[in-house]
């Protein structure tokens, strides 16, 4: 049998006070008053009659008084019962289940510590004390990040028995733990409890949610409430341990994205960066430091960001070489570091190959397109146009082109139509310009095919736009679309200058289907559609119902033509170009062509200490896939692929943190209580966390001792009364 342990063992010295009643008794014996007494007979008679009971009662009284002192001292020392017989009191095993928040908001730094360190220290303190308890104690430690992984959760400790030498082990384990750059709430961790530990029956389970309790994660805690209600149903005690004491201001780079444009080496790329102020006060003069491929460049300064608001700034980068280029935006250090940086990888080809198919061997229209897309000379657009006749479509693979322009074509073979439609469906861009040779019947029946084809609308035939001599209104009405960004503004002179004379008319009653992707981007003065787009598969199709060359219109003579065409090119190429924003925690997948590459892929993360990780590609949905699951740190990742020839090819990826985690608004006990109304829980600030608060140690005896003390006090008074230590009011009858 193990003795109970005490939370305040020093107070046990007070047990020496138990001797006080005995000492008082002995002193009283020495201080006997001597009385020479006449009526000894009565006294002796009384003594003879009462002797035994008086002795017993006096002994009991003495014991009661000693007991009172002992009970009071023990109660103050807070004993915790931990022995074999405490099992019978229903505390077989105390299972501490610690769910540790390791999202990046736990890096919240203040003074000389941070939230995660506070969490680790409080955990060590708590377990250190649990180790000296007698009741069997076990610990399961699960980090939020390890619960959020694909597949089964991976606890760091699984129902480990806490022994006396457990503390150093835990300490070294915790020392290795660092917060991740993930933005995760407690939901996944709570959810995984059930699969991980099963029912709580037969053990005394305590779940500790060690977190910073950021407001955004508890905004609509319905799911959390369900999880916690389940715990409550199973009689699991819930302890919320908050590791931060207050909300601190924080700036985060919320977004860094390239604007649509022609991605090619040497072409300036516009990039937008958004900075969010999560603090409660406005912040001024925020410098966003920028680096292109690691070399610093002039910073972008944001004059002022209002509290809780974001500001977006645009800047241009230009990389003279082809390949994956790295743009990094960073802020100066604040409470949380992870969201002060954001990375962008822009993959630039040397040039963007574009195919221009002209139905006319003279290629008049193609010429205008070529001039617009690749003017040559010092102007670099990054577009490499290739002009071909329609039969090129039948014979040559189209995959290497990003965009195909069809101008002034009369007919296409079914194989060519199929090839084009497959090209678009895979993500390619297709632009269609009319011309003299364009056959409306062919377009409607073969390319439109009642919407089944890639052409966005049926056409009837060519039509004239009546000349408006007074020029009260421009011929063109353009929608708000990136392609027509150059015409933005109501009184744009470019727009006034465009005159359209002929066009390919759609049926008068044709309107885009409301639920389709078809949109009219520009219409004529008479409301006939002129530019119509639709999405087809992964790609985009834009139909211009007039000529590219200045035959049916004068647009090509207008400088806006070049700008619009380049925008159109960027827009159509966007199906490929769109940079997918990857977040920390998402598995990084590389798809390989088994014919070209060897299956082993070497991944390197931003954590240099971790070293590269080799992954064997497995066959998946899109062929061979190599997957790196551990992406808990934000930054640049590289995947080294080996071609069959032995040549090494490197691909780069930027994984950024979810900026919403940077909102450091934290909830205090009362706010949490209101969100968890009706769910039993206890809230502890981590710094004040003591074992006594948590009552981890099996069966607390203090309360029982309090009742014992009260019982003893009552018993003592009753005994004292029966032993006539209380003056009696009744007088002796003379």
């Amino acid at each position: 049998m193990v003795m109970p342990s005490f939370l305040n063992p020093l107070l046990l010295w007070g047990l020496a006070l138990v001797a006080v009643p005995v000492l008082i008794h002995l002193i009283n014996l020495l201080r006997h008053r001597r009385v020479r007494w006449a009526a000894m007979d009565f006294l002796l008679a009384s003594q003879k009659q009462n002797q035994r009971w008086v002795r017993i009662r006096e002994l009991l009284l003495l014991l009661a008084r000693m007991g009172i002192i002992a009970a009071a001292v023990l109660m103050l020392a807070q004993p915790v019962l931990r022995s074999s017989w405490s099992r019978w009191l229903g505390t077989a095993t105390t299972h501490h289940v610690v769910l540790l928040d390791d999202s990046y908001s736990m890096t919240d730094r203040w003074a000389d510590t941070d939230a995660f360190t506070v969490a680790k220290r409080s955990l060590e303190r708590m377990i250190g004390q649990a180790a000296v308890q007698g009741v069997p104690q076990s610990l399961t430690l699960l980090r939020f990040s390890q619960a959020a992984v694909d597949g089964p959760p991976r606890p760091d400790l699984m129902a480990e028995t806490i022994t006396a030498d457990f503390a150093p082990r835990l300490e070294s384990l915790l020392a290795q733990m660092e917060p991740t750059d993930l933005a995760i709430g407690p939901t996944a961790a709570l959810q995984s409890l059930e699969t991980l530990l099963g029912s709580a029956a037969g053990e005394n389970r305590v779940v500790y949610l060690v977190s910073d309790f950021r407001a955004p994660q508890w905004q609509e805690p319905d799911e959390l409430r369900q999880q916690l209600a389940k715990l409550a149903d199973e009689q699991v005690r819930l302890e919320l341990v908050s590791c931060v004491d207050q909300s601190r201001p924080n700036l985060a780079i919320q977004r860094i994205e390239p604007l649509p444009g022609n991605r090619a080496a040497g072409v300036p790329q516009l990039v937008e960066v958004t900075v969010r102020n999560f603090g409660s006060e406005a912040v001024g003069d925020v410098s966003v430091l920028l680096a292109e491929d690691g070399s610093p460049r002039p910073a972008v300064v944001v004059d002022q960001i209002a509290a809780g608001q974001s500001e977006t700034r645009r800047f241009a980068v230009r990389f003279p070489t082809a390949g994956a280029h790295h743009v990094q935006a960073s802020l100066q250090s604040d409470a949380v570091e992870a969201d002060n940086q954001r990375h962008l990888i822009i993959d630039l080809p040397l040039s963007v190959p574009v195919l221009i198919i002209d139905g006319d061997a003279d290629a008049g229209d193609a010429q205008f397109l070529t001039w617009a897309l690749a003017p040559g000379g010092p102007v670099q657009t990054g577009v490499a146009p290739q002009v071909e006749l329609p039969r090129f479509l039948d014979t040559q693979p189209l995959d290497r082109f990003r965009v195909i322009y069809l101008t002034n074509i009369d007919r296409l073979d079914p194989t060519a139509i199929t090839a084009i439609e497959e090209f678009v469906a895979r993500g390619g861009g297709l632009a269609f310009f009319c011309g003299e040779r364009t056959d409306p019947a062919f377009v409607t029946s073969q390319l439109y095919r009642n919407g089944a084809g890639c052409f966005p609308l049926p056409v009837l035939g060519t039509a004239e736009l009546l000349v408006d001599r007074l020029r009260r209104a421009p011929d063109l009405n353009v929608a708000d679309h990136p392609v027509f960004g150059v015409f933005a503004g109501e009184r744009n002179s470019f727009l006034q200058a465009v005159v359209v004379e002929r066009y390919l008319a759609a049926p008068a009653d044709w309107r885009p289907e409301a639920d389709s992707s078809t949109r009219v981007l520009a219409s004529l003065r008479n409301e006939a559609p002129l530019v119509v787009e639709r999405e087809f598969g992964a790609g985009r199709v834009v139909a211009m119902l007039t000529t590219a060359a200045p035959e049916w219109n004068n647009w090509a003579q207008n400088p806006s033509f070049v700008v619009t065409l380049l925008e159109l090119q960027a827009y159509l190429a966007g199906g490929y170009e769109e940079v997918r924003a990857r977040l920390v925690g998402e598995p990084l997948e590389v798809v390989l062509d088994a014919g070209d590459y060897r299956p082993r892929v070497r991944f390197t993360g931003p954590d240099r200490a971790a070293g590269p990780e080799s992954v064997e590609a497995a066959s998946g949905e899109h062929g061979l896939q190599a997957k790196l699951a551990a992406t808990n740190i934000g930054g640049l990742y590289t995947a080294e692929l080996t071609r069959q020839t032995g040549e090494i090819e490197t691909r780069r990826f930027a994984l950024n943190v979810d900026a919403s985690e940077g909102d450091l608004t934290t909830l205090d006990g009362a706010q949490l209580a209101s969100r968890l109304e009706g769910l039993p829980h206890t809230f502890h600030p981590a710094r004040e966390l003591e074992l006594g608060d948590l009552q981890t140690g099996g069966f607390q005896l203090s309360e029982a001792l309090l009742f014992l003390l009260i019982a003893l006090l009552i018993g003592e008074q009753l005994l004292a009364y029966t032993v006539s230590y209380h003056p009696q009011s009744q007088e002796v009858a003379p």
Partner: protein
Amino acid sequence: MPASKKYLQPEALRRISRLELRARHIVEGFLSGMHRSPYFGQSIEFLQHREYAPGDDLRHVDWKVWAKQDRYYVKQFEEETNLRGLLLVDVSRSMSYGSGTFTKFEYGATIAASLAYLLLRQHDAAGCVTFDRDVRGETPLRTNQKHLESIVQLLESVQTDDETDIYGILRRVAEQYPRRGMVTLISDLFVEREPLFRGLRLLRQQGHDVLVFHVLDDDEMEFRFQGPTRFEGLESTARLNCNPRALRQGYLEALEEFLADVRHTCARETVDYALVRTSDSFDSVLAAFLSNRLGMHHRN
């Protein structure tokens, strides 16, 4: 309360050191507060004439009858002498206990002196016997006013000592004072009960009018001791270490049982019994005495 009576409180009387003076003070104070007492001034009452026989005291010859009839007659009175009041004062060691102003003995002696004074003042005969195991001092019954002095001397001279042999004393008194009279026993009665009751019965059988002043101290009545105490017997070698509060109830019960027994026996034997505490004022004692006188008168 008449003003004089407040001087009958033991505290007040303690200041009068001489027993005789104290006795006078008590009695005068007591009587001065009364109106004409029906018990006061009783004198010798003529009963009958009887023919002279040789040996009769010539002082009792009624010479007026002889002058008229030339025959010798002697006058006979109802009582040939006054009331014969014998005071038995216990001077055993137990009487030396006292928690208040007087010890039980001092209180008893004061009662005895006061009664003697009262008796002598009324021209009754008063005598006193002090005793413990044996008779320690004795003054014969006298009516002489100056006899008070010898009684007082007797009371002042004794030292309390030894235990009490009550039956022996009472039997001896019965033998020595065969003529009926009033026997007043002043004692704490801490004696064997059976001899006490036997002795009292003997006195009653002799025709004595018996009065018992049972003198007890407040401590003995109430037993209000606190704290560990060692009780040592005054008349015995018994010792007892105890917590008096624990024994109080048993003690009071035993005492009450004893007092009830004594009261009951006295009532049965027509012995006048008065329990007095050493803190009681003396007038209550004198009142008890005088009521007894009346009772005796009626009884005889």
